[in-house]
C-alpha cells in the first residue's frame, strides 16, 4: 500500500537507552496503601466529583463526571472507600494542586457491573451515544498530552486514514514497545473500532525500526485485518510527533495552524487503542496504564500501574540508586521534573526516569546566541528557533507569533543541539503561556466592557421608566384635582363620572372629618381680632389657589409678604420641576423608542 516513506526536516538522534527497561515483560504493580485520583486529565479536561467522603466504591465505578466541553470521566481504579476529596499536587510542571479523590483500597479489587458497548449496533444514527460512552469510559490520549478521545472521534470531518502511533521516539521510554509486544491483538482490535468510528478506510501503524519485536508482533496481529498495515519508520527523534508521523507515513504536510483531521488523517497512540478495545469489548473504563520505570535505578522495567498510584510507591519497585537527585515524568526531551514524590500516576504518565548528575548533568551556563543556525537545521516543525528565541527573550510576543511560535511542538531538538546551551524551549513555553494569559485577559476585558455598557444602558432605561411612572402618577393626581374642582363647582353632576364623584365624596368626607376633629382656636376671640383674622384669610385666599399664586398681592404686611412669596416660589418651582420631569420622561421615552426601532 505504501510505496515510499517520506521524511521530515531535522530531528536528532540521542542515545535511546531503551534496552534497559524493554527486556522484562510488563508486570502488575502492587496495590498502594492509598490511591489519589486527580479529577483532571490535563489543563482543560476536568471532572467534578460525584462521590462522597466515606462512600464505598467498586472498581471501575465512576467517581468524577465529565465537566465542560473537554471534560472526561474519572473512575475508581479499585474497590475501596473514598477517604477524602481534597487538593493534591498534580503531575504538572507547575506543581500546583488540583482536586483529587483519595481512595483507600479494601483489597478485594471487586469490579462494578461492566457494560460493554456494541458500537456497530448503535450505528451511525446514534453517534452521540458512542461519544458519550468514550467520554464516560474516561478515554484520553495515552501518549502524554491526555487529550480526550471523544473530541477527536467526534470531529465532523471524515478521516480516510487512521494513524496508530507506535513510534515512541523519546529515549528511555519503552511502555508502548512492551505494550505492542504483549498486547498487539488488543491494540489492533481497538484500532479497528476506532477506524470504524471514524469511517477510516485504512489503518497505518508507525513503529520505529529500533523495536523489531514489537514490529513482528504487530505485523502478526495485523495480518487478520485487511486494511491495516504496519510501517517501519526510521529511528529519528521526534518521529512520534503527530504531524511528523503523519508526514512520514502519508506524505501529507499539515500547514501552519491546521490539524491532521482537516486532511482526513486522525492519529491515536497505541495505548489509547488498547484502552478503546477494553472499553468497548470488555466494558472496562480506563483504570491503569503501562509506566516505564527507568533511569538511575536497579531494576528498570515496565509496570501496569493503577491511575492514582503515588510515584513514591512505584520507586520502591525500581530501587533508585543513591545518587539519584531528581525524577523526570515523561521522557528526557519533553518531560518535566516531578514537583514532589507524592504526585500520582495519571493517564498521561508514560515514564518515570530517575535522574542523576551522571546521566543528566545540569546544563552548563547559558551563553549568548552565536547565530550558528544549528537549531533551524534540526527543527522538525520547519521553524527558525533562533528568531523565536530572540523575540521570546525580548518579550516581543507579536513578532514571535508572526514567526509561528504556536507551531512549535516543544520537542527540544533545538535546545539539544544548541552549542550555547540556551534552554530554548523554556523561552518558547514562557512566550506561549504569556500570550495565552494575555488572550484570557483580553477576553475578560471585552466581557467586562460589554457588561459595563449594558449596565449603563439598563440604568438609563430604569431612569426613563421611573420618570415615565412619575409622570403618569402626576397626570393622575392632576386629573384628581380637576375632578375635585368639578365636584366642588358642580356637585349636582355626579353621574357623568362615577369615579370622580366617588373621589369628590371621599374628599368631602375627609374634609368634614378634619374640620370636626381639628379644634378651632379662633372661636373664642374678641370680635376685632376675629375681624383681623378674617381680613388675613381674605388676603390669603388667592394664594392658596394656583392662579392666585401668580397674582401680586396688594400691600401685604412685611411678614406676610415674605411668607406669601416663599409659598409662591415653592409652588412655582414645584410646578416647573414637574413639567421638566414630564418633558424629560417624554424625551427619554421617545429616545428609547427610537433606539428600540434602531435595534430592530
Amino acid at each position, binding site marked *: 500500500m505504501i510505496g515510499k516513506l517520506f521524511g521530515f526536516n531535522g530531528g536528532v538522534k540521542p542515545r535511546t537507552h531503551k534496552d534497559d527497561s524493554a527486556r522484562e515483560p510488563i508486570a502488575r504493580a502492587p496495590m498502594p496503601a492509598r490511591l489519589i485520583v486527580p479529577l*483532571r486529565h490535563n*489543563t*482543560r479536561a476536568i471532572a467534578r466529583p460525584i462521590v462522597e467522603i466515606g462512600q464505598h466504591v467498586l472498581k471501575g465505578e465512576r467517581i468524577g463526571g465529565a465537566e465542560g466541553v473537554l471534560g472526561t470521566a474519572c473512575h475508581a481504579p479499585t474497590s475501596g472507600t473514598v477517604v477524602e476529596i481534597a487538593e493534591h499536587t*498534580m503531575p*504538572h*510542571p*507547575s506543581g*500546583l494542586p*488540583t482536586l483529587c479523590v483519595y481512595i483507600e483500597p479494601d483489597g478485594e479489587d471487586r469490579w462494578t457491573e461492566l457494560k460493554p458497548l456494541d458500537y456497530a449496533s448503535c450505528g451511525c444514527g446514534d453517534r452521540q451515544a458512542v461519544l458519550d460512552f468514550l467520554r464516560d469510559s474516561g478515554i484520553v490520549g495515552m501518549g502524554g498530552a491526555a487529550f480526550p478521545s471523544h473530541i477527536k472521534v467526534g470531529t465532523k470531518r471524515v478521516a480516510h486514514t487512521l494513524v496508530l502511533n507506535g513510534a515512541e521516539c523519546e529515549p528511555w521510554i519503552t511502555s508502548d514497545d512492551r505494550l505492542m509486544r504483549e498486547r498487539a491483538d488488543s491494540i489492533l482490535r481497538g484500532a479497528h473500532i476506532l477506524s470504524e468510528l471514524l469511517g477510516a478506510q485504512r489503518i497505518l501503524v508507525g513503529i520505529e525500526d529500533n523495536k523489531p519485536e514489537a514490529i513482528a508482533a504487530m505485523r502478526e496481529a495485523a495480518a487478520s485485518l485487511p486494511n491495516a498495515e504496519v510501517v517501519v519508520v526510521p529511528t529519528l527523534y521526534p518521529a512520534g510527533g503527530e504531524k511528523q508521523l503523519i508526514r512520514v507515513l502519508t506524505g501529507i504536510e499539515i500547514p501552519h495552524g491546521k490539524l491532521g483531521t482537516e486532511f482526513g488523517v486522525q492519529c491515536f497512540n497505541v495505548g489509547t487503542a488498547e484502552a478503546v478495545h477494553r472499553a468497548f469489548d470488555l466494558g472496562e473504563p480506563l483504570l491503569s496504564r503501562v509506566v516505564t520505570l527507568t533511569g538511575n535505578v536497579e531494576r528498570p522495567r515496565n509496570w501496569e500501574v493503577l491511575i492514582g498510584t503515588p510515584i513514591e510507591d512505584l520507586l520502591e519497585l525500581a530501587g533508585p540508586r543513591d545518587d539519584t537527585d531528581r525524577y523526570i515524568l515523561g521522557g528526557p526531551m519533553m518531560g518535566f521534573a516531578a514537583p514532589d514524590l507524592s504526585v500520582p500516576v495519571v493517564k498521561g504518565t508514560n515514564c518515570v526516569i530517575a535522574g542523576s548528575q551522571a546521566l543528566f548533568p545540569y546544563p552548563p*551556563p*547559558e551563553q549568548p546566541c552565536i547565530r550558528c543556525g544549528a537549531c533551524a537545521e534540526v527543527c522538525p516543525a520547519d521553524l527558525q528557533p533562533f528568531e523565536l528565541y530572540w523575540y521570546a527573550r525580548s518579550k516581543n510576543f507579536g513578532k514571535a507569533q508572526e514567526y509561528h511560535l504556536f507551531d512549535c511542538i516543544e520537542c527540544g531538538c533545538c535546545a539539544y543541539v544548541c552549542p550555547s546551551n540556551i*534552554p530554548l524551549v*523554556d*523561552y518558547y*513555553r*514562557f512566550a*506561549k*503561556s*504569556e500570550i*495565552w*494569559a494575555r488572550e*484570557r*485577559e483580553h477576553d*475578560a*476585558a*471585552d*466581557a*467586562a*466592557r460589554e*457588561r*459595563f455598557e*449594558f*449596565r449603563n444602558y439598563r440604568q438609563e432605561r430604569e431612569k426613563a421608566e421611573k420618570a415615565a411612572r412619575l409622570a403618569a402618577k402626576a397626570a393622575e393626581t392632576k386629573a384628581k384635582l380637576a375632578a375635585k374642582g368639578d365636584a366642588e363647582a358642580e356637585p349636582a353632576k355626579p353621574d357623568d363620572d362615577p369615579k370622580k364623584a366617588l373621589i369628590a365624596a371621599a374628599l368631602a368626607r375627609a374634609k368634614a372629618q378634619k374640620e370636626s376633629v381639628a379644634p378651632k382656636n379662633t372661636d373664642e376671640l374678641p370680635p376685632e381680632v376675629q375681624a383681623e383674622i378674617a381680613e388675613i384669610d381674605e388676603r390669603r385666599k388667592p394664594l392658596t389657589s394656583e392662579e392666585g399664586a401668580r397674582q401680586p398681592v396688594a400691600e401685604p404686611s412685611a411678614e406676610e409678604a415674605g411668607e406669601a412669596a416663599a409659598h409662591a416660589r415653592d409652588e412655582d418651582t414645584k410646578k416647573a420641576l414637574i413639567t421638566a420631569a414630564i418633558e424629560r420622561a417624554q424625551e427619554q421615552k421617545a429616545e428609547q423608542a427610537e433606539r428600540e426601532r434602531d435595534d430592530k
Partner: protein
Amino acid sequence: MLTALLVMAGLALVIGAALGWASIRFKVDADPLVDQIDAILPQTQCGQCGYPGCRPYAKAIADGEADINQCPPGGEEGIRHLADLLGREFKPLDETHGIEKPKSVAVIDEDLCIGCTLCIQACPVDAIVGAAKQMHTVVDPLCTGCELCVAPCPVDCIYMEPLPETVENWKWRYPVFKLEQTS
C-alpha cells in the same frame, strides 16, 4: 484658453462634489483613536484615573486632557502599550491614582452581609447578585477587581482576595539561570 479653463473648472467641480459626497458618506462617527485606547485599557471601570469608566478615560487621553499614566490596573505594561500607540514617551504610573496590585476579586463575607444592596448598585459590571435583605455574593469570573463595592458596604464585609494561581492560569516563568555559590 477657454477650453482649458472650462476643463479645469469642470474637474474642480466634479472632484469637489465627489469629495463632498465622500465626506458625508464615509463619515466616521466616533474617534477611532478612542476605540484603540479603550481596547488597551483593562476595563475594570474602577474610576481610579479620575474618569467614570475606561471609555471616558480613553476619550480624555485622545483629547489630550488626561495623561497616559493614570491607570493603576493597567499597570506599567498598559502604559507601555499606550505610549506605543500614541507615540509618546513612557512614564511611570502616577501614584496619586493608586498603585499596581495583583489581580484580585471581591469576596463578600456572607455571615456579615445584611443585604443592603449598596454594593450591587456600586458594581460597574453587575458581578454581584442578591436582593434587599437577602445575602449577596460576588460572581468571581465576572469580577474585575475594581474595589468599588468595598467602600459603600456599611458593615465592611467585603474584602479583596488576590486570585490564586491554578493549573489553568499558571504561566511558565522567564528562564533564569541559577547562580551557584561556590565559596
